[in-house]
């Protein structure tokens, strides 16, 4: 039983990443009707925001260490981060330690700006173009973003740890009435889950309770009518693109301590996030979230040793199997709207 609870937690964790990415994707083609193959790249950019911030905080100047030599026999030097100079060593160290949470603030303007730039500079010219063209141009963009990251950061994954205070573990079992150490779960993963849940709730609340959100929802349902009402839906859609980019970026920032950022992660996530969105049903935000969590949990269970022993290889294909089963039994995924990208 405790194993099952742990796997549910793992699934929820994985699922929240799926859900956040799928949410952004759905926002984009629900509102703009654009298939965004660069969305995985946005997630990757978010994760690299965390890397960049931690690099910035670690910016150092060299200090020669007397009496020591480096591997070539030259006098050894030591790097001292500027933040140490400015805030003192203890405070400086803890600022560096909290780089990932700080990157949340750092990433929002960057991701929103990136989203705006993408929409205004590129995507808006593709609203009336066939989906195939949208795929090609956004795929091209995804490659370019990936290569830029590779150029500056290399291809090797970059360890981006969570703050010391949040990298411990929570004895989760005690909360549920188990004995101590029955279910021990990494704290950062719980943080990730609650963070994601908050973002998802925030996006839904925003769409539900603000006038802006209502217009956007109306636009998702019927773009022409809203346009006829004389509302400048385009501007709002630009904003939505920024929002979607920010959501993907935040998902990436917070995911960095869980899976070390590498430039390939954009492509790694691209296909999965599309599967999640489609399983959830095109154009349905709740569907995207539901599918994300569902697939996350199913994937976690499929990797249990007992399951893999029984069906070797099931962990390799489970997501796709489930996707096929759902799409064959429910023509438009879990909660898809009729007529969205069906032709």
């Amino acid at each position, binding site marked *: 039983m405790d194993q099952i609870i742990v796997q549910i937690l793992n699934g929820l964790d994985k699922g929240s990443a799926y859900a956040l990415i799928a949410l952004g994707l759905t926002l984009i083609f629900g509102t703009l009707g654009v298939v965004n193959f660069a969305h995985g790249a946005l997630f990757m950019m978010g994760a690299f925001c965390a890397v960049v911030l931690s690099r910035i905080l670690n910016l150092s100047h060299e200090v020669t260490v007397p009496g020591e030599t480096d591997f070539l026999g030259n006098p050894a030097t030591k790097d001292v981060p500027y933040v140490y100079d400015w805030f003192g060593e203890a405070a400086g160290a803890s600022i560096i330690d909290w780089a990932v949470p700080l990157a949340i603030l750092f990433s929002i303007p960057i991701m929103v700006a990136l989203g705006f730039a993408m929409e205004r500079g590129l995507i808006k010219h593709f609203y009336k173009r066939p989906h195939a063209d949208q795929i090609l141009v956004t795929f091209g963009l995804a490659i370019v973003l990936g290569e830029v990251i590779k150029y500056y950061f290399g291809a090797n994954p970059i360890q981006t740890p969570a703050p010391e205070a949040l990298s411990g573990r929570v004895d989760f079992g005690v909360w549920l009435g188990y004995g101590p150490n029955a279910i021990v779960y990494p704290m950062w993963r719980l943080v990730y889950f609650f963070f994601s849940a908050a973002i998802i709730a925030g996006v839904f609340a925003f769409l539900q309770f603000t006038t802006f959100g209502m217009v956007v929802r109306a636009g998702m349902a019927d773009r022409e009518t809203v346009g006829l009402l004389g509302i400048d839906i385009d501007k709002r859609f630009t904003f939505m693109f920024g929002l979607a980019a920010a959501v993907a970026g935040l998902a990436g920032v917070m995911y960095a301590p869980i899976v070390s950022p590498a430039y390939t992660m954009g*492509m790694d996530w691209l296909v999965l996030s599309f599967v999640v969105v489609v399983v959830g049903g095109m154009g349905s935000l709740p569907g995207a979230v539901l599918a994300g969590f569902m697939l996350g949990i199913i994937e976690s269970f499929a990797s249990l040793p007992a399951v893999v022993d029984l069906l070797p290889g099931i962990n390799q294909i489970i997501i796709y199997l489930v996707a096929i089963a759902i799409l064959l039994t429910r023509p438009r995924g879990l909660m898809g709207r009729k007529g969205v*990208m069906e032709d």
Partner: protein
Amino acid sequence: MTDQTTQPSVTSPARASKGGMFGLSSKDTTLLLVVFAMVVLAPFILNPFPEGSGLAQFNAGYPDLMQRFVIFGIFAIGFNILFGLTGYLSFGHAAFLGVGSYAAMWSMKLFTLNVIPGILFAVIVAGLFAAAVGFISLRRSGIYFSILTLAFAQMSYALAYSVLTPLTGGETGLQIKNTDNPILSNIPEGEIGRANLFGAQMGNSYEMAVGNWLFTFNLGYYIAAAFMLVAFYLSIRIFRSPFGMMLRAVKSNQQRMNYTGLTPKTYTLYAFIISGMYAGLAGGLMVAMDTQVGPERMFWTASGEVVIMTILGGAGTLIGPVLGAGSIKYMENILSKINKDVLHQWFAFLPDGLEDAVVVFADIFVGKQWHFTLGIVFMLVVIFLPGGLVEGAQRITARFSRKKSSNNTPAE
């Protein structure tokens, strides 16, 4: 080179029935002959620069790349029959290519090293697999269809990489080994068999040196090219046939098809199978030319690549997919080999400081950054040439002939 799009201006009865050969209209015949000439003369066309010169780096007239051009051309032509005509975007076509490759490989390992049975076997197995996948996936349309095909392909890849290792060789793939002794080929004990056509090996080449130029005529290439020409010819026939018209009707209006007494799903399924068989043919040829198959051939990026080849060249046009396939394979094989050393050679004539600056800048686009150029090319083409490379070619022709090409509507 101009291309005939799916637009009707070129299919008026008068022009269609007169003047052509092989049952094609005169315009289609011209296209076929141009393609034929280019394919036959490829060893010359692709090697414009003399050996040893700095620009020889850009020569593509060596067997492996020429083979890849025509093989991926076949793959893209087949994909275009499905996507270009019916509009159904399969995101898992690489699975058929991979399955075809494995089938051909096993035929060579067990049965005979002659490539013909292997290729036939590849086409048949890929066709059957496509029939099964298509039958299920075509229960849905639009992006739901795309994701279903993607799911099947990804499962094929994942299983081939891991649990199916005994059948597929897993990560290391399958090669002909010295322990393989196909029942119909007499391989001396301990020798590694080679793919052949009635004894002639695929690697056989005939080299011709003209001045400083060296041209290679490779048997494998010409065999693959012959298959490609047949595949191309068949695709023209399909485009112009009642079946092809029905496929375009599928893209245009399925509801009307239904109420006209037709079954769009059946037509699409057959298009899917045909296009799967083309993929199988490409897969079989890959094994015939280079006896090796690995599971990455079925990864989603490989499926994505053929989608991109088709769109880049011009979906729904006859020659577009071939152009798209050629340009992507060219970039992959030529750009990636340009390293800093080569750049320094090229720009050695510049003053030192300038040379370094130019090399550093140029290096962003080649060598290990060749993907960057690829991404930029995708974006530029789709932004400025909505109909793909074919539209670019059409614009150039139109400019040269100073003729307003009123009928050259974008290919999509």
